[in-house]
């Protein structure tokens, strides 16, 4: 698309000034903001930033939840030729130091006191940072630090200046070109410092438009924005596509009210990482268990019906009269009310992205009539690479290449992508850029996968993580840790899994149980427990987990490529893996290497065949204090199966 973010805003403000652009729930009421009002606010902010000395090309850090004024601030920065850098609002302060210094950031726009405190903490290490603006003044009345301003004050100053220079914003917007840098996203990086992914207006908007065309999005869509803006998925769905299509973005009241807000808004276009869908499903299942026996039986009966006919129905296949009738009754009694309860009554297009989704989970949503699909993409590709067409959603593939994308598979199995949405480069990091972006325009995704017979892309794992078993009975077999971990995580009782096997004679995994799901399971069996650590080591829980592991093994045995990745031994960890302890990335992916170092004794014990092992681990609490957890962990063997198709 040959345009820029601020120009799109200008178009909406001129062509449909009275239509709603944003809604925010405040004081119990959805408060709308029209495109005209948004434009005016952006105008005032732009004047304010200009007066404060924001120059073309300056980077501005944005930290906070989805708030209308943060959106306006990003637009104002972009209108002035600046580059917003959204950062994760739940990161600890020290994680902001690198991005701020790397991009020599002078300006920051943050949501509230919590974020202000974090930036003030690191200010001594960030000499360049001179202006911090906050949206919500609560608790900040008595902060007297130099360089701390409220957005109210900024808007107020800008308002006065805007009256003096009416043509200023239009001139600034005209000066902004599609090939200028529009935004920068720091990737969470599993090793080393994060890298700043530089995107232009053209690259982000090209992909946003391609996605919108693919799903025929209109300006009548309703979207609920609740994932961090620093995640490119959220940024594309609720910012780039919002401006492309001109639909309404709804900002929830608070992080805790999302399920309530979802019901009230009834989004038509919805996206979330798998864990959100999983959380919702777990909730439904737990509540169903508490329902009266009649309701429970009705639910289970019609869910079986839904699993039989629902996916076929979504894929547009013919269903017999009996099936249609049964499904119709189910829709009336169960699926309809359930969709309504989840807030999905109006969902026309739903996406899961960010990670692989479990087949049961995926099928559940499609079975009850929600058009849930998968897509493939990354920060570097501005999300849209592959998308699943409405009638061809599969749990194990990620769809077909969408318009404007070329895909090829390299000899080592790596997927290469070429599109107009590729990153301009990594910020101040030409070596890293050269590693992923070849001169002829191919981006190396570092994902291993292949295109199946129907032209759908299937992802196996990260290229660098795909390894080989060495020694033992499966010598030389292919090992894809993430593939194994995902299969485990698809069970509701297992929250996280870390698999090891590359260069070793067998596959061993360390697991986290899902405290809610297993806790509930235990309560139903009158199994008392004192907390996570205690529950995790119960013999009954180990048996439960063993079942899951052996099911995965049976499943893997049927896979020609990965039959050798079956799990020989496992243990359940004594503490939940946590991003604050550096064990997960901010997007909740396991940092396998880090965990192997930290829990070295456990890994050794697994491979040495011990049956139990003592461990003590330091933990960081949310309020910054630290403590330690210790436990003696059980280590358990799991049955493996002979590969299907070979003599048993």
């Amino acid at each position, binding site marked *: 698309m040959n345009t820029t973010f601020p120009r799109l805003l200008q178009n909406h403000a001129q062509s449909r000034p009275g239509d709603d652009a944003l809604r925010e729930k*405040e*004081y*119990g*009421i959805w408060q709308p903001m029209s495109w005209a009002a948004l434009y005016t606010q952006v105008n005032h902010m732009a004047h304010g930033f200009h007066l404060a000395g924001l120059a073309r090309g300056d980077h501005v850090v944005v930290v906070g939840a989805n708030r209308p004024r943060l959106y306006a601030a990003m637009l104002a920065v972009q209108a002035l030729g600046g580059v917003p850098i959204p950062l994760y609002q739940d990161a600890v302060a020290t994680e902001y130091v690198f991005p701020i210094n790397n991009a020599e950031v002078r300006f920051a726009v943050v949501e509230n006191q919590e974020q202000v405190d974090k930036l003030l903490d690191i200010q001594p290490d960030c000499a360049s940072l001179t202006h911090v603006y906050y949206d919500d003044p*609560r*608790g900040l*009345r*008595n902060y*007297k630090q130099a360089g701390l301003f409220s957005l109210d004050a900024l808007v107020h100053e800008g308002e006065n200046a805007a009256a003096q220079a009416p043509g200023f914003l239009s001139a600034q917007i005209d000066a902004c070109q599609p090939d200028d840098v529009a935004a920068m996203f720091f990737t969470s990086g599993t090793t080393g410092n994060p890298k700043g992914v530089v995107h232009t207006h053209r690259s982000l908007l090209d992909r946003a438009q391609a996605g919108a065309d693919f799903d025929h999005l209109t300006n009548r869509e309703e979207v609920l924005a609740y994932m961090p803006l620093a995640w490119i998925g959220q940024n594309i769905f609720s910012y780039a596509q919002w401006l492309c299509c001109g639909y309404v973005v709804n900002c929830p*009241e*608070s992080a*805790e*009210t999302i399920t*309530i807000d979802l019901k009230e808004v009834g989004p038509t276009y919805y996206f979330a990482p798998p864990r959100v869908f999983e959380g919702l499903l777990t909730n439904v299942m737990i509540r169903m268990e508490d329902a009266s026996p009649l309701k429970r039986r009705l639910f289970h009966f019609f869910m079986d019906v839904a699993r039989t006919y629902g996916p076929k129905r979504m894929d547009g296949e013919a269903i017999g009269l009996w099936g249609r009738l049964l499904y119709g009754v189910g829709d009336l009694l169960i699926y309809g009310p359930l969709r309504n309860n989840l807030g999905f009554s109006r969902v026309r297009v739903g996406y899961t992205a960010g990670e692989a989704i479990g087949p049961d989970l995926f099928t559940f949503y499609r079975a009850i009539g929600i058009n849930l699909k998968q897509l493939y993409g990354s920060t570097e590709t501005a999300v849209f690479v592959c998308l699943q067409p409405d009638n061809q959603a599969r749990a194990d593939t990620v769809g077909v290449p969408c318009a404007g994308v070329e895909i090829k598979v390299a000899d080592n199995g790596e997927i290469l992508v070429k599109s107009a949405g590729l990153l301009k480069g990594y910020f101040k990091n030409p070596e890293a850029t050269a590693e992923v972006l070849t001169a002829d325009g191919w981006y190396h995704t570092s994902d291993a996968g292949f295109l199946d017979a129907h032209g759908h892309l299937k992802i196996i794992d990260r290229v660098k993580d795909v390894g080989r078993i060495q020694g033992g009975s499966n010598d030389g077999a292919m090992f894809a840790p993430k593939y194994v971990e995902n299969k485990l995580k698809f069970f509701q009782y297992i929250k996280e899994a870390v698999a090891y096997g590359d260069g070793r004679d067998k596959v061993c995994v360390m697991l986290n149980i899902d405290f809610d799901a297993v806790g509930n399971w235990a309560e139903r069996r009158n199994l008392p427990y004192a907390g996570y650590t205690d529950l995790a080591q119960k013999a009954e829980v180990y048996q439960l987990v063993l079942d899951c592991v052996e099911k995965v093994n049976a499943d893997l045995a049927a896979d020609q490529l990965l039959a050798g990745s079956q799990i020989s031994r496992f243990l359940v960890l004594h503490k939940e893996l946590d991003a604050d302890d550096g064990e997960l990335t901010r997007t909740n992916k396991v940092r396998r290497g880090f965990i192997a170092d930290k829990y070295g004794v456990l890994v050794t014990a697994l491979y040495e065949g011990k049956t139990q092992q003592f461990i003590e681990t330091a933990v960081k609490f949310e*309020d910054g204090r630290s403590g330690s957890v210790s436990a003696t962990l059980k280590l358990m063997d799991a049955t493996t199966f002979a590969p299907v198709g070979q003599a048993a």
Partner: protein
Amino acid sequence: MSRDIGDVILDVNNISLRFGGVKALSDISFDVREHEIRAIIGPNGAGKSSMLNCINGVYTPQQGQITFRGQTFSHMDSHQVAVMGVARTFQNLALFKGMSVLDNIMTGRNLRMKSNLFMQAIRLGPAEREEIAHRKRVEEIIDFLEIQPYRKTPVGQLPYGLQKRVDLGRALALEPQVLLLDEPMAGMNVEEKQDMCRFILDVNDEFGTTVVLIEHDMGVVMDISDRVVVLDYGKKIGDGTPDEVRNNPEVISAYLGTGH
């Protein structure tokens, strides 16, 4: 903190309270300045709650006067106290368990409603407009106390820490000048206590509300109060800043016992 502590707003003079032969309070005097956080501490049975009940008009002391904003009373009338701008929370919570959070806080607005029961029942124009205005204020309190997710939840279903917060919300709905908090942190875990501390400090900071609180947890009291009164067996044994009180030998012996 830069909020300006003003003149004496509440002055308690020589209060004595007896229940038959039991001397709950003897000859207690202290003052509370505008915008400050004033704590009353003491071991069990020291007379802390009795003191609050005297200020609040629940008990009538046999001796002494209470001066509030220049007016002197020998006994306070609870309704009149509320009209004058003194609100309180209760140690054992006094919420309507079956009613939603919203409705509970709305009851705190009762005093400020002008329309009568009949007008409200038939939703007469002025009554409805008034309700909307009050609802707005209640929503601001809900936002302030961060209890939006529980707006429509019956209070009885909430965990204890949140119920305490609703209790505080109901007191705030009165838009009080002086807030009396009876053990706001009793029975809470560390995290809930920290939250509650923050809310008390924020109330004091944002609305300029004078806070008189009774608390058991010495750590909390010392952290957030400007001045502390210490009671023991119905007598005042200390009064001053947290530091002064902490070093007062009588207080130390009351709390830790004396060496013999």
